[in-house]
């Protein structure tokens, strides 16, 4: 195993790329993909620390994160489909029904 810093830097890079995607993109589907990137970065951290301390609990938590990601993708994509059916758009800044 390389030093833990390598993994932390990699995970921080993926996390910030994901955050930039969430903040700057207009397409909701790509925003959801960026959220998947963020969750992946968290998983890398968990597994790296699990390896560092020789404790399987970190990997067990990574499985919980993957479960969360699956649930979030299912519900989020369901919302996108139903919204697209009503408003014919996937752009985040046109989803302003609450702003009236």
């Amino acid at each position, binding site marked *: *195993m*390389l030093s*833990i*810093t*390598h993994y*932390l830097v*990699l995970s921080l*890079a*993926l*996390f*910030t*790329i*994901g*955050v930039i*995607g969430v*903040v*700057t*993109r*207009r*397409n909701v*589907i*790509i925003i*959801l*993909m*960026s959220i*998947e*990137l963020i969750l*992946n970065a968290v*998983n*890398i951290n968990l597994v*790296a620390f*699990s*390896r*560092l*301390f*020789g404790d*399987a*609990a970190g*990997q*067990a938590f990574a*499985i*919980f994160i*993957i*479960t969360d*990601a*699956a*649930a*979030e993708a*299912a*519900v989020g*994509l*369901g919302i*996108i*489909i*139903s919204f*697209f*059916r009503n408003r014919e758009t*996937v*752009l985040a*800044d046109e989803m302003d029904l609450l702003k009236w």
Partner: protein
Amino acid sequence: MFDTIGFYFFAGLAVISAVLVVTRRNAVHSAIFLITALLATAGIFLQLHAEFLFIVQVILYVGGIMVLFVFVIMLVNLDVAIHQMQFNRMWLVALLLTIALGAQVYMVFHYAHAGMTEPLFHLQPARASDLEPNTELIGATLFSQYMLPFEIASILLLVAMIGAVVMAKRKV
């Protein structure tokens, strides 16, 4: 040696494809690069001797979630959206957020050695054999120490399934 090469290969692949996910105009291209990024992450898991998570990542993420994404991209008509502006004017916010996040993470790990005898970055990793047999250890952890969170996760999946069906149904 192989360890180092593997890490840099998979890390570079992951970062490059993550950048491409965020910058591509076409959502289908983004989805393809997201698959590459997820596979590269799976490679990192393999390099960290987390074999079970490697296979879970490949089957569940690449095989399950990404298929869902591609399906929705195909269902949603993107021909219009592709010719519209892809980015909103939030670059400054994104930059500030990135700097703040980086500083925050650095501070956390800088001060993280409070209860330890030596700084976090100088800790020697445990032996790789501590995590073997990998699947058996994860299973034992999940079904003894984290039994309640495991059951809650299964209820979460049920709720998500019902929620997705209700959301995507034609008439509520």
